[in-house]
C-alpha cells in the first residue's frame, strides 16, 4: 500500500537553523547599512546595548555589543536619534528573532550636528576663546553701533525700533550679511572684518532671528567664532531665541538671548537721561529757594541786631538794671531787719526768763532796809528794831526786825 505524500515536518530548531543559514549565506544582509530611528534603547551593565531601529512602516531589532561599541567610542544612543546602523543580519534561534548585529552607528541630522557642535565647543574652550578674562566691557555711551545681520530679516527692524526708542542719539552702521546657508559663515566673517576695518563702531551686534539648529548653524562655524574673537570692537551676540546657544554666543563679549535684547544691552536709555535732567532742574529750583530763604533770614537777623543797639533801647536796658538793683537791695534790707527782729525777740525771752519778778511771783520776796532801801542779803545788815520794806508780787509790806539768828 502507498502512503499519500505529506510535506515534511521540521522541528522548530531545524526551521530556525535553516533561516539562520539562509540569511548568513546572503551577501546583502551580511554587510548592510540601515537608516532609521532609534527606539526602546537600553544599555545593560554588561555594556551591551539593545534597541529597535524603525521607520514609518517597519522595525528591526538591533544588538550593539560592547566590543562593537568600543569602536564607536562608546557613543551614547538615545531614543529618537536618526542614525545609519551598519552590521549583519542574523536569526537568533533562542528567541526566534531576526536581529541586526550592529558594528557601527553613524548619527544623522540633528544628532550629527549636535556632535560637531560639542566637538568645536570643547576645542575652542580649550584654546581659551570663551574665557571670562577675554571678554571686554561694553562702552557705556556708544556713539556708533555696528550691526551684522540680514537686511531683509525682521530682526533688523526690531533692533532699529529698540534703538530709536532707547537711544536715538546714536548712529547705526550696518554691514549686511547672509545669515543661513552654505555661504553664510564667510559672509558673516567678511561683515565683521569690514566693520573692524572701518573702525568707527564702538560696539558691534551680531544678530539673527529664531530658527532651527540647521538655520542657526552658520553661527556655530569655526571661522565665525574666530572672526568674533579677533574683533577689536566689543561684540554682542543676539542669535535665535532665549534657549538657543551658539558658539558665537560663547565667544562674544556679551551674549544676549535675542536680537532685541542685544540692541537693549548695547545702549543706555535716554528715558533715564531725561529723568536726570529733570532732577537737576528740580535741584536748581530747590537750591535757589533755599538760597533766598537764607538771605531773608540773614536780613531779619541783622534787623533784630540793629534794633537791640538803639539809644532808647540802651536807656531802657539801664532802667531795667536799676530797677533790678533796687529790688535786690530792698529784698536784702528786709531780710536783715527780719533777722534782727528775731534776735531781739530771742534776747527778750531769755531776759524775761531770768527776771527777778518771776522769782518773786513764785513766793520769794525782796527785803529792803526802809531807811535807805538797800536790799538785805545778810543778818549783818540789820539790828533788832530796824524798819524793813518787804516787796512781794502784789505790793509791799512794812515790818520790823525782831531778832536775828
Amino acid at each position, binding site marked *: 500500500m502507498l502512503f499519500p505524500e505529506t510535506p515534511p515536518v521540521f522541528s522548530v530548531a531545524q526551521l530556525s537553523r535553516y533561516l539562520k543559514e539562509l540569511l548568513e549565506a546572503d551577501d546583502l544582509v551580511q554587510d548592510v547599512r540601515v537608516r532609521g530611528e532609534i527606539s526602546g534603547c537600553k544599555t545593560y551593565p554588561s555594556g551591551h546595548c539593545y534597541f529597535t531601529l524603525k521607520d514609518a512602516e517597519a522595525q528591526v531589532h538591533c544588538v550593539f555589543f560592547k566590543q562593537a561599541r568600543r569602536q564607536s567610542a562608546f557613543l551614547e544612543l538615545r531614543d529618537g536619534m536618526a542614525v545609519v546602523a551598519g552590521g549583519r543580519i542574523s536569526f537568533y534561534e533562542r528567541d526566534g528573532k531576526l536581529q541586526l548585529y550592529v558594528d557601527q552607528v553613524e548619527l544623522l541630522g540633528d544628532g550629527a550636528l549636535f556632535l560637531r557642535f560639542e566637538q568645536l565647543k570643547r576645542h575652542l574652550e580649550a584654546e581659551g576663546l570663551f574665557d571670562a578674562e577675554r571678554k571686554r566691557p561694553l562702552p557705556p555711551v556708544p556713539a556708533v553701533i555696528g550691526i551684522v545681520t540680514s537686511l531683509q530679516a525682521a530682526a533688523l527692524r526690531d533692533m532699529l525700533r529698540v534703538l530709536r526708542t532707547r537711544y536715538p542719539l546714536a548712529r547705526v*552702521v550696518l*554691514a549686511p550679511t547672509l545669515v543661513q546657508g552654505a555661504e553664510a559663515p564667510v559672509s558673516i566673517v567678511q561683515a565683521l572684518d569690514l566693520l573692524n576695518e572701518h573702525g568707527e563702531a564702538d560696539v558691534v551686534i551680531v544678530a539673527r532671528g529664531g530658527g532651527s539648529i540647521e538655520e542657526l548653524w552658520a553661527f556655530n562655524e569655526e571661522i565665525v567664532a574666530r572672526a568674533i574673537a579677533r574683533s577689536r570692537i566689543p561684540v554682542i551676540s543676539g542669535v535665535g531665541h532665549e534657549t538657543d546657544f551658539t558658539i558665537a554666543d560663547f565667544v562674544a563679549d556679551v551674549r544676549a538671548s535675542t536680537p532685541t535684547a542685544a540692541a537693549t544691552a548695547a545702549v543706555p536709555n535716554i528715558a533715564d*537721561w531725561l529723568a536726570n535732567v529733570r532732577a*537737576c532742574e528740580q535741584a536748581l529750583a530747590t537750591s535757589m529757594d533755599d538760597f533766598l530763604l*537764607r538771605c531773608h533770614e540773614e536780613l531779619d537777623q541783622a534787623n533784630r541786631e540793629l534794633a537791640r543797639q538803639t539809644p532808647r533801647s540802651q536807656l531802657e536796658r539801664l532802667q531795667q538794671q536799676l530797677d533790678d538793683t533796687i529790688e535786690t537791695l530792698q529784698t536784702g534790707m528786709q531780710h536783715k531787719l527780719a533777722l534782727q527782729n528775731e534776735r531781739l525777740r530771742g534776747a527778750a525771752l531769755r531776759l524775761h526768763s531770768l527776771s527777778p519778778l518771776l522769782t518773786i511771783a513764785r513766793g520769794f520776796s525782796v527785803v529792803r532796809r526802809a531807811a535807805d532801801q538797800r536790799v538785805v542779803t545778810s543778818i549783818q545788815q540789820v539790828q533788832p528794831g530796824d524798819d524793813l520794806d518787804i516787796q512781794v508780787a502784789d505790793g509791799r509790806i512794812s515790818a520790823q526786825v525782831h531778832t536775828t539768828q
Partner: protein
Amino acid sequence: MDMDAIATLSYEEAFGKLEKSVAALQDGRLSLEQALECYEEGMKLARHCHDLLQKAELRVQQLRVTNNGDLETEPLDLV
C-alpha cells in the same frame, strides 16, 4: 554763557555743566547775584539737554566697499 553758545554744546558737555551749576548753587557760598546767574544758566542748559533728547533721530547707514576698495557709508532707507 548765552543761549547760542549753549546750543552748540553736545549732550555730555551740556549735562556736565548743568551738574556743576547745581553743585555750585547747593554749595551756598555764592553771592546773591552769582546765585541768580548760576540758576539762570543752569535752567538754560537743562532746556538744551531736553531739546537734544527730544529732537534726536536715529541715523542708519550701510557700510559698503567702493569700486576702488574704500569703505564708505551711505544712508539706509528701510521699507
